[in-house]
């Protein structure tokens, strides 16, 4: 019977969330360590998603021709690119964007952690536990507030790396933080939290009805 319990969907989700949490915590911890070390020991460090101002061959606000293809770039576009350079030359932009990325990673990690606890509780058949409501609210508000934080940031002027040595390859233009999924999942979690809160109250009342 115990084996059946561990084969339930809730436990599958619990293990998935727990493994993902441990994996991402390790990866993000390593990346943060690498960024910190890179900042104090200026060598060639991958800066990542930090926006970079283009110059010379690639103008971010106009078009350019590549072989027979004409590429038009507008300010709101974004592109994936690997950027190398010395963070000390642009410490403001480097710290700012590292912090912003850190906020996203840490909020997602917390959501995973609470999700794992929630699914463990459900796997243990504690469906109407007040802790489940708390986990749903924590997940919901964390993701929702993170998405609001990012949406506000998108409207604010952001520091951009302007040192030419940073550009190694590709097209680098302004990065827009996209957190629509955070907002959708966050709002759904909050709504389900309220539903579960009411269900828990009814369940408690039913249990105390003689």
């Amino acid at each position, binding site marked *: 019977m115990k084996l059946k319990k561990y084969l339930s969907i809730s436990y599958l989700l619990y293990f998935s969330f727990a493994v993902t949490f441990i994996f991402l915590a390790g990866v993000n911890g390593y990346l943060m360590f690498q960024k910190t070390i890179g900042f104090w020991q200026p060598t060639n460090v991958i800066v990542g998603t930090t926006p970079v101002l283009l110059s010379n061959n690639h103008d971010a606000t106009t078009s350019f021709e590549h072989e027979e293809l004409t590429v038009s770039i507008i300010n709101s576009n974004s592109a994936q690119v690997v950027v190398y350079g010395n963070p000390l030359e642009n410490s403001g932009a480097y710290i700012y964007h590292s912090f912003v990325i850190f906020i996203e990673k840490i909020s997602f990690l917390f959501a995973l952690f609470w999700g794992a606890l929630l699914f463990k509780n459900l796997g243990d058949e504690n469906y109407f536990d007040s802790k489940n409501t708390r986990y749903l609210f924590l997940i919901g508000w964390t993701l929702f507030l993170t998405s609001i934080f990012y949406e506000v940031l998108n409207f604010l002027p952001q520091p951009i790396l302007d040192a030419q040595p940073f550009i190694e390859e590709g097209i680098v233009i302004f990065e827009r933080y996209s957190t629509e999924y955070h907002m959708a999942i966050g709002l759904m979690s909050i709504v389900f939290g309220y539903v579960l809160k009411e269900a828990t109250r009814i369940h408690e009342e039913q249990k*105390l009805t003689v």
Partner: protein
Amino acid sequence: MPVIVNLDVMLAKRKMSLTELSEKVGVTMSNLSILKTGKAKAIRFSTLEAICEVLDCQPGDILEYREQ
């Protein structure tokens, strides 16, 4: 709660134990304890009817409204 359950008073009057009442009414001891200690949120008419029948009393003898 302003509604007081006087089950222990009625049990004392009838010189009956909670275990005996539980057996006669068909309600578990834990549920009767919840009722006796005032932790219950609600009571079913069927339970009240059975208790009144066994204790030979009225619902008002078991439940009492007292202003806080």
